[in-house]
Every structure is written in structure tokens, then in C-alpha cells.
């Protein structure tokens, strides 16, 4: 569901209680999901990331500060995005992870596979 109040270069879409917003910042595309990412929300996130990645951004930042919970379906969605990014020479960076979300990356031993930094500012320069 597009939000007409968003400026050109930005978009916002929503599926139930889960929403995805994206904006351009200094040559990077910043994606801001909001809500829990489980099997109910991850297909929508996957769809939105795919749509964003078709424009082959140089740097794609996924800011997870608004995500209090993620299960393995969310992790799988981000792994898929990372693989797509590598094929297209896009630098994919994750930031803003809450402890509960970070722990699932650690359990899956993916915390070193992704580039993970504290916040968007750090993600712009890493």
C-alpha cells in the first residue's frame, strides 16, 4: 500500500502490523522494516527487498531498529537479499539490531557472514 505523502525517492508499504519504509540517503538506499518479522511478515519483506534490489543500489542498508523480533524466516529473507546483493555488487549492511534479533543471527552463526554495525551512520561509512 503506497503512501502518497512520501517524497519522490522514498516509499512506504504495509502488510498488516508490519511495514517497510525506504529512503535515499547519501547515495545509499536505507530500508526500515517496522514490526515483528516472522513467517507472516517475511514474504512481504522479501517482496519489498526484491523490488528495491532490482534498481541495483550501490549500498543497501537494512535498519532493524524497529524490529523487536525475528525468526528464521526473517533471517532466510536477509540471507537471500545478501546473495542477491553479492551478485549485483551491492554492499548490504545491517544495523540497529536489538539484542533479541542479534541472538538469532548468533545462534545461526551468521553474525560474521553479514556486515552488522550499530546504526545507519556507521552503515554509511563501513
Amino acid at each position, binding site marked *: 500500500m503506497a503512501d502518497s505523502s512520501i517524497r519522490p525517492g522514498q516509499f512506504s508499504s504495509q502488510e*498488516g502490523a508490519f511495514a517497510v519504509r525506504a529512503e535515499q540517503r547519501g547515495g545509499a538506499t536505507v530500508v526500515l522494516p517496522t*514490526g*515483528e518479522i*516472522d*513467517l*507472516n511478515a517475511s514474504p512481504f519483506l522479501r517482496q519489498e527487498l526484491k523490488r528495491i534490489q532490482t534498481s541495483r543500489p550501490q549500498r543497501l542498508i537494512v535498519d532493524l531498529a524497529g524490529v*523487536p*523480533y525475528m*525468526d*528464521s*524466516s526473517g*533471517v*532466510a*529473507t536477509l*540471507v*537471500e537479499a545478501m*546473495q542477491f546483493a553479492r551478485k549485483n555488487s551491492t554492499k548490504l549492511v545491517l544495523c540497529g539490531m*536489538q539484542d*533479541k534479533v542479534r*541472538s*538469532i543471527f548468533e*545462534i*545461526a*552463526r*551468521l553474525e560474521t*557472514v553479514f556486515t552488522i554495525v550499530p546504526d545507519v551512520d556507521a552503515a554509511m561509512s563501513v
Partner: protein
Amino acid sequence: MAQPASSSSSPPKSAVGDIGEPPQIRLQLMSNPQYLSGARELVGAVAKRLGFADEACGKIALAVDEALCNVIRHGYGRETNRPIWVSIWPLIEPGEQVSAAASKARGGGDTLPSALRIVIEDEARQVDPAVIRSRDLEEIRPGGLGVHIIKAVMDEVVYERREKVGMRLTMIKRRTPEADDHMDRSNCKEYGGG
């Protein structure tokens, strides 16, 4: 509330201890991902009420979420109208569930269980439990992490075929002593999400 087809006349039997009494909680939900958040919140809140620390509550809710996801995706092939049952037994000692009499003998509502047994049952196609295992984490690819996560966050995990139809997953999480230090019943949080 409907009972699993194979256990409607007798208590379920599990490889992780005999389950001689009805569960303290039994939730039936349809295999629709929309209900995952509600199931997580219920299980996390129950674990909190039973004295588990915040981190353990989150892990228990995560394990239930992953188990339900596996049933929905692999068991039912994403059909959204098939039944799943989540049953919960607080355990005083490993292998001993809390009965009303036992709870009363130990001081009633103040009794904290030493562990939580959670059983998830379905009517999906039966598979050999031996083939349900974690995948190699060195292989970086989407999917296949659910079983690994469940085994990583729970203390005991057993898959088995139900007597007539479907599969049963029994998970046990033990309460660590430090959980008591963190317990604050007046400040219960929700554990489905944040």
C-alpha cells in the same frame, strides 16, 4: 477444544517422559502464520509467570515459533486451515508434571516448576524422526535453520510419530536458578515481540 485425533481417548505418550495428566494449557490453532504472534505471546507470558528469566522466555517463544513454522511449511505445505496443538506441562522435577494435588502440597500458586514441557502435535504426513535434523551451518543459504534453532535454545528436543497420524515434537526447557533472581511478577512483559 478439539483434541488430536490419536489422543482423544487417552493422554499423549511421549519419548520425553510419560505424560500421565492432561496439560495445564492446551492451545489449538490453525496452520495460519497470522496466529504465530499470538502463540508466541501466550507461551512467553506463561513461562514468565512460571518464573523463567526474560531471556529464557524469549527462547521458549522462539522455539515454539520455529516449531509451528516447520509444521506450517513442511508438514502442511502452507495450507492455512489444518490443526496444530500446543500443550504445556510445568514440571516440578524432570519427568514429573505438576498436578493440582502436587501444586497444593508445595504451597499452591507459589510453586515454581523446575522445567517446562511443551508438546506440539499435528496431523501432517508422518516422516522418519531421524531425518529431522539440523543442516550444515557452514553452507550459507536461506532456510533450514528452524531445527537448529530449536535444538540450540531448548534443553531436550524429541521428534516422534504420533500413534495414528501426524507428528509430535516434545521440548523441555529447564529453569535455571538465576531465573528466580530476575523474577518480577509485577512486571510481566510480553514475549511474542519486544
